[in-house]
């Protein structure tokens, strides 16, 4: 019994010790209490009394948010002034929204319910949405602003250059630069900060008023710093200013994304190609589910994206995405944009204007001029000038800006090709139900593509759509001898486009087919078969007609 008494005594003492220790470490010495104590001692003495050490949280029931970030980041809690410059206790940087309006995790990710640093930042296993890294913080705007309107990249850059050149920054601060620092009372003036001028209502007649001021002033900054701006420059400046919503990196990144043709293969929000994965929510992917075996450095979503941009097939074995040869700066921006592609579910009452405009009123977040549409959807495959691209290990993407091609391709041909794509090949169907492009947009693209070829267009064709009446067997032999090496034995395509393609054969006239064979396409590997050559025989008109007949033979079987 003595032994039992000892066992009882020592385990009881041990248990009491554990209970006391747990109570102490979890309630007195826990992280956020210690931090709040440190904050309190850093406050000026007169404020210390009023500061209570308690759990702080921002609760927004409609968003299912209970964010306790402000228990440690006390400076950002509602009602606290914070300590400027401090690592943890600094107040929230000046942003468009009130941080306590939505909570923290809606914009920053992470685990709001946690009160321990690692868990709260979401960098622990089994939390699918880690915090967005600080340098990409504005990517969180994409959670709600899913259809943020951005201008064409070239116009954006041009507008930015013009704002610099016309010295608007002499009086106006913009994205943290510029503006005057004249102390009050010394005759200076400062214009309003323009960083958010695109998000808020502003006077659209500003230019007229600026001019009037200039006329009225005899001396001073209105005379010296402001000069009239000619019309096309003014339009670019206005577009640039309209894009200033307090998230400059985000706008730039999105504009870049929409100039590289990524949506040619990737759909976002139902608009885009289907060759690659849908990217609508790619910024919300769980890094714990990704394969990091080929990704050096930290195991974060941003790191994975960046490496994937550098070498897609290395990170995703068997990937159909080519290595695009992007610069590091571009990769940084594209990573930024991808991180902003998030779409958590929340009530419509919280939807911002851009999302309502897009979803309810069918407005586009990208500009719908030809250059932007082409840059958004076509440039990655067909090249920025429509010159076609040859990526290693893939069949060639045709040069649709080739003048010889455009001289034969009618608008209807181009329209049908864009609308229905090339089934079975890499060209997606872009019609409204498939790729999501509207008829007006397709029309714009047709015009732009034609412009890429210098305006070459087919003349009127006196012959009907189907006039070829050659001999199919002759055509088959000739095809096998001359065409199969590039276009495939069954017309399935190889180096050259697929000819046994339902949409091609439906939209191409016999003239188109025959003339293409006859003239070739200069600048591509399609030779002119009616021209003399040391390496192959010339094809006569009748032989070309037979080949066309042979191609038409595939029209039934490819249906």
């Amino acid at each position: 019994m003595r032994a039992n008494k000892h066992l009882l005594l020592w385990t009881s003492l041990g248990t009491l010790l554990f209970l006391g220790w747990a109570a102490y470490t979890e309630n007195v010495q826990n992280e956020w209490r210690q931090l709040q104590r440190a904050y309190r001692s850093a406050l000026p003495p007169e404020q210390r009394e009023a500061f209570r050490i308690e759990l702080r949280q921002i609760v927004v029931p409609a968003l299912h948010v209970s964010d306790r970030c402000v228990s440690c980041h006390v400076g950002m809690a509602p009602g606290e002034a914070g300590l400027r410059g401090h690592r943890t206790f600094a107040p929230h940087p000046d942003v468009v929204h009130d941080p306590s309006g939505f909570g923290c995790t809606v914009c920053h990710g992470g685990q709001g319910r946690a009160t321990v640093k690692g868990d709260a930042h979401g960098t622990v296993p089994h939390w699918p949405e880690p915090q967005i890294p600080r340098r990409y913080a504005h990517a969180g705007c994409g959670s709600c602003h899913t259809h943020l309107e951005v201008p064409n990249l070239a116009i954006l850059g041009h507008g930015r250059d013009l704002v610099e050149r016309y010295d608007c920054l002499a009086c106006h601060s913009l994205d943290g630069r510029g503006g005057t620092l004249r102390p009050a009372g010394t005759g200076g003036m400062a214009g309003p900060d323009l960083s958010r001028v695109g998000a808020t209502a502003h006077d659209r007649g500003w230019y007229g008023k600026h001019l009037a001021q200039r006329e009225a002033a005899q001396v001073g900054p209105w005379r010296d710093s402001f000069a009239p701006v000619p019309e096309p420059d003014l339009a670019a400046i206005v577009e640039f200013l309209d894009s200033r919503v307090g998230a400059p990196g985000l706008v730039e990144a999105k504009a870049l994304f929409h100039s590289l043709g990524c949506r040619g293969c990737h759909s976002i929000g139902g608009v885009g190609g289907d060759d690659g994965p849908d990217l609508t929510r790619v910024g919300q992917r769980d890094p714990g589910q990704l394969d990091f075996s080929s990704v050096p450095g930290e195991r974060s979503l941003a790191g994975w994206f960046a490496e994937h941009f550098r070498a897609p097939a290395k990170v995703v074995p068997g990937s159909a995405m080519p290595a695009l040869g992007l610069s590091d700066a571009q990769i940084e921006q594209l990573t930024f944009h991808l991180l902003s592609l998030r779409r958590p579910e929340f009530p419509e009452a919280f939807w911002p204007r851009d999302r309502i405009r897009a979803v309810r009123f069918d407005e586009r977040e990208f500009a719908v001029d030809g250059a932007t549409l082409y840059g958004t959807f076509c440039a990655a495959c067909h090249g920025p000038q429509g010159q076609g691209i040859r990526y290693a290990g893939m069949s060639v993407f045709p040069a649709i800006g080739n003048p010889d091609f455009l001289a034969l391709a009618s608008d209807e041909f181009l329209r049908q090709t864009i609308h229905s794509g090339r089934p079975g090949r890499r060209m997606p169907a872009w019609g409204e139900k498939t790729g999501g492009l509207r008829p007006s947009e397709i029309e714009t693209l047709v015009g732009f593509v034609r412009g890429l070829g210098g305006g070459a267009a087919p003349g009127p064709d006196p012959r009907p759509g189907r006039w070829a009446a050659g001999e199919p067997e002759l055509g088959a032999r000739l095809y096998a001898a001359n065409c199969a090496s590039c276009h495939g034995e069954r017309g399935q395509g190889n180096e050259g486009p697929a000819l046994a393609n339902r949409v091609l054969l439906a939209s191409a006239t016999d003239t188109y087919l025959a003339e293409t064979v006859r003239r070739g396409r200069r600048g591509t590997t399609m030779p002119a078969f009616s021209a003399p050559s040391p390496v192959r025989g010339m094809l006569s008109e009748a032989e070309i007609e037979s080949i066309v007949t042979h191609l038409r033979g595939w029209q039934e079987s490819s249906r």
Partner: protein
Amino acid sequence: MSASAPALTRFGRNLVAAPRRFVETMFRSGAPTSDRKRATFVFGNVFLHLHPARTHRWSLRWATTWGLGIASFAALGLTLVTGVLLMFYYKPYPDAAYDSIKDIHFVVPTGRFIRNIHRWAGNVMVVTVILHMARAFYTAAYRRPREFNWVVGMLLLVVTLGLAFTGYLLPWDQLAYWAITIGANIAQSPREVTDALAMTGWFDPGGFQKLLLLGADTVGAEALIRFYLLHVMILPLGIALLLAVHFWRIRKDGGLTRPDDAEQRLGPTRGVYPVFREAPQRTYQLAALVRGKTAAVGRGPEGTVPAMPHLLYAELAVLMVTTFVCLLLALFLDAPLKELANAAVPENPAKAPWYFLGLQELVAFSAFMGGIGIPSIVVIGLALIPYLDRETDGTGVWFGGPGGGRLVLTSAAFGLAAVLGVEAIAIRFGWIREWWPHAPQLLITAINPGTVLTAIYGAYSIYLVRRYDSTRAGALGLFTCFLAGFLVLTVIGTHFRGPNWEFFWSPAQWPGH
């Protein structure tokens, strides 16, 4: 107190004496300073009077029981206390459950600790009840007159596993959701047989069981509420009832099992005052009109000591050691919590709780056999042990009976070899469908590693019965084989099975992330 003193004086004296009198009226028999008072202390107390007034010294030995029964009870008590505390904050609805667990972990003062204790005490309880069952078996504590208490113990084992399983779903994370999906599909496994016999259309016990469990076709809000109700109300009430019967039977059966020559084995009493030698003619406070004798009549109390303090200190020591261990674990090891349950993202591998992983390993070969067939055979087989082994040789002693400890060692080795051999064949070469892709399902239901192993163990047991001419020897062999098999299968299911239930030598080799 002089009655002749004035009333006011008496009042004053009464007031002063009130605290002492309060204590005296609370403990009517006073401090336990004599044997009579010690006995009264126990049987006059509503909380303690389930205990006997005197306990045999053999029952108090650590080597006899290792305190496993009380340890199970202690673990249960811990889960009850911490469970009630958790109920203040836990919300049993899919939208709220996971977040409420997060709040308990991060915000509720000492919530992390309480939740960890609850999880660890639950796991400790499963371990101790299994060890307790092994102890009761190896000391042949199921023999006459304790057969029915052994059956009650089996029921308690089932309810304990039920409690652990129902609790597993409540956090509503990926671990919980998919483990219970597996469990519900195992409940549906009779379809393996009814499908093969084309009976499912009009006789579908599998589907019925799954519906009963989940209240719907998939794990959802209905299942959560159902499991919550089972976990906090129905199964605890069940376990309380069964425990009442279990403890009552211990008293009525005459205390814990001990060998007939327990006195000789113990030797003289040391350090305790000499016990009296007369056998009582009747037990305490036995009504004169009742016929028959209780277990204590006719047996001298030579080897007994007062329950207060000996038994009570022993029990308190076990209670505190169990508490200490659970708190130690809880302080340093967090209860797991994975991502929020997501029906679109199955865990791969989706694993049942550890105590069912051995079964899941068998289920991988045949859902019906592994999930229903073999567990039924095991439970019924275990329940039958007291009725098949009615010998008296070796009661109360560890590994008592023909063969003894050596037989147990041999059986353990045999059991290990058999299970490792069957598993090695199944893992290395596959099973019937590898060579005969169109093998009928019923053939595989009948012949799979689980049934083969059961048959091997059964044959071995029958061999032992004949060799030692003793049912006890057969039981010793069979039970030991069962333990070995359970252990190895659980270890394989835990450590060596990865995605798609394929065999890997280590989790580091799993494909994917």
